[in-house]
Each structure stands twice: as C-alpha cells, then as structure tokens.
C-alpha cells in the first residue's frame, strides 16, 4: 500500500490518469449537522431569516462538487454526469442528515466530489441558520460507498449503513433535477437494487412503446438485460409511492419504484 499522491521523493504528485480505463464511477458521502430542536423547527417550517435553507444548501453542495478540483490541490477536474444532494430532517436526533451522490464515466474516482458536496452543504446550512443558533455542530462527514475503478467497490459497514432507499423525507417533494424532455424517474429498492446494481435511473417517455408500467419494463429490458428481472412476478411496483400494476399509466416526472416483496414487522 502506498500513497499515489506522493512521488518517489515524497513530494506531492498529481497522478497521471491518461492510461486508466474509463469506467462508471459513483460515490456516496454523508454527514450531519446537529442543532437545537427549535432551530430545526424553524428550518423545516421555512421561517429562518435567510429564506429557503435546504434549497440553498442543495445548490451550494452541487456547485461545490463541480469545483472540487479548485479546492483540493491534487484533484483532477471532472465532468460529472450527476450530482445530487439530499437532506433528511431528523427530529429524534435533532439534526439534518446530508447525503450526496456523484457519478461519472471517467478515469478517476468521485469520492472527493461527494465529500466536498456534503461538507459545503453542511457549511451552508450553518451559515443559513447561524443567526439563531451558533452552537450547531457538523459531524461524521464520511464516504459511505464507492463503485468503479481498479481498487474495486467500497461499502462502509456500520450501524450507519444506508437505511433508506428513497430520496427525501415524508411529505417532502424531492427537488431532484428534472430531465429536459418528458421522463420518469425509476428507483430500485432493497434486494432488487443490489441485483440490478443501480439505485435509480431516468427513462425518457419517448422510449416507451406504451406509456404504462408494462411499457417502462420493456424499455428498460431493451436498454440492458439486467432489467429483464423486473418482469419477475415477485417484483412489485409503485407510481408516486402508490402500488401499481403493469397497466397503470405513467406521466412526465412520475417517480416509479420497483422492489421485492416486503418483509417488515
């Protein structure tokens, strides 16, 4: 094991990635900011003096991910294909959980971008709320998982393993970016997510022979044989979080989730 950012003389060294294969890279990082319950309430009610805290912090995190190479000396600049920043308001722990996912096809990993997005989103949350609460603490900024690259995949094993498979919290409309043309956002949950190796994708409505769940499954299966298992009778489906069958119609910006039979309780 050696540090690739140091050369043989121990000096800082930007790694030449020209010879590396381009692969699909993805990284998820998370962190949290702990605050007074009163501050959290003001934040979720939108009553803080600086306005919409979460929307601002989300944009700040996305912008920061794109500028990571300007902040971290030996980082390459990357053409990210996706950056998402999500917030989960946790009343029980009196904190906001911040999660970022960064993705690209490229020669170098995206974990620094995901970590930067989380850090700057947390800092922005602090800035937006500091008028009412100076004692907030930013904690536990960490890489949760990464995929792709020659060192293989990484998954943090701990009590903090990912516990949710959707975005956003109850009653909150996800602010994920909309696609330019009419599309549906597709999520794969739990075991199905692991089997297809992907948590979400976007499908353009123009790709569907019929604009219903059956048509969506067929379009996905045509895209990639991994998605053929969606036609398995055990696989369940929900449109905008309501159970649906193959004949159910899909419209622009719907959230469609596929998942295995439930096993709670």
């Amino acid at each position, binding site marked *: 094991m050696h540090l690739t950012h140091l050369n043989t003389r121990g000096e800082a060294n930007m790694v030449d990635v020209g010879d590396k294969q381009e692969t699909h890279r993805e990284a998820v990082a998370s962190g949290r900011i702990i605050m007074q319950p009163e501050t959290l309430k003001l934040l979720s009610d939108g009553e803080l003096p600086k306005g919409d805290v979460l929307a601002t912090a989300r944009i700040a995190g996305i912008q920061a991910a794109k500028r990571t190479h300007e902040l971290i000396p030996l980082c390459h600049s990357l053409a990210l294909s996706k950056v998402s920043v999500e917030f*989960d308001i*946790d009343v*029980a*722990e009196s904190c906001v959980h911040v999660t970022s996912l960064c993705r690209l096809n490229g020669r170098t990993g995206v974990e620094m971008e995901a970590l930067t997005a989380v850090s700057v989103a947390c800092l922005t949350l602090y800035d937006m709320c500091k008028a009412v609460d100076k004692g907030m603490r930013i904690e536990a900024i960490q890489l949760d998982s990464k995929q792709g690259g020659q060192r293989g995949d990484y998954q943090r094993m*701990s*009590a*903090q*393993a*990912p*516990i*949710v*498979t*959707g*975005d*956003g*919290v*109850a*009653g*909150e409309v996800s602010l994920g970016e909309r696609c330019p043309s009419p599309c549906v956002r597709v999520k794969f*949950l*739990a*075991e199905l997510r*692991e089997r297809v190796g992907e948590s979400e994708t976007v499908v353009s409505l123009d790709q569907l022979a019929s604009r219903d769940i059956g048509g969506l499954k067929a379009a996905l299966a045509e895209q990639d044989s991994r998605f053929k298992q969606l036609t398995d009778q*055990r696989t369940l489906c*929900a449109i905008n*979080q*309501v159970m649906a069958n193959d004949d159910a119609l899909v419209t622009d910006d719907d959230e469609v*989730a596929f*998942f*295995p*039979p*439930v*096993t*709670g*309780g």
Partner: protein
Amino acid sequence: MNNKLDIKVAIQAAPFSMDYGYDDALAGRSDIGAVVSFTGLVRDFNESPDVTGLTLEHYPGMTERTLTEIGEQAWQRWSLQAVRIIHRVGYLEPGDPIVRVLVASAHRREAFEACDFIMDYLKTQAPFWKKEHSSQGEYWVKERHSDQQDAARWE
C-alpha cells in the same frame, strides 16, 4: 365517547420505549375501555440459526402513507379510539424492539382484532425490507407465504 380519527405513525432509527404510545393515546380520556398492544422483537434465529443483527430499509414517504392507510382501514372496520404504529429502521440487534402497534377501543374484542389486522397488513403491505447478518454472511429475508395467508383472513 369520542371517535375522532386519532391515528399516528412513526418511522425512526432510534429505539422506542416498551410503553410507546400508551400515555399519548390515553391522555385526557376516560372513555377508553381497552388497550391492546403488540411489540415485535428481533430474534437471534430466523433464516439462519445465528442472526447477529439486521438492517431494515424502507421507502420514505410511501412507508408513512401505507401505515396511515392501514390504520384508517382498521378504523373503518372496528370502532376504535386511538391507533399508534411505530417501526424502526436501520441496524438492529437480537432483542431490540422493531415494531409496536397500539390500539385503544371501548371494548377488548375490537382492540384485539384491530391490532391483529394492522400487524397482518403491515407485514404484507408496508415497504420495509430486512437484511439479516449472520456469521455466514448477510442475505435478504424472503417473504413468507404464511404472512400472506394471515392477511387474507381479513378479506
């Protein structure tokens, strides 16, 4: 007697107390004659004989909606006075309470049946998934046919 819809559901990673919901459901009321509650715990044996823990995933938003709807169905079928449902997500160890359903009614039969109904529907409809950890590794828990049969009793 007050039959105003009183259903609360909660999803959380943190542990809950063994009397969760009781004080809240009964506060300021003297028309309740029966409280039935069910608490489900993590067993150390299930699909493998040495379960060391499990990780529960859910589908935020749909989970809360589904549990509320199940509570509302129970409210329509029986004469109830309060329903409380709490379910944990995240990493749990054997012995940890995982789910608790509390039903208050004027009479015991309705509270017993409604609590039974809510658990049967929760197990077959609410979007939770368990991944068990054991010394042999980890695996996703398979759905049980008997749970489907239990839920079908109410049709």
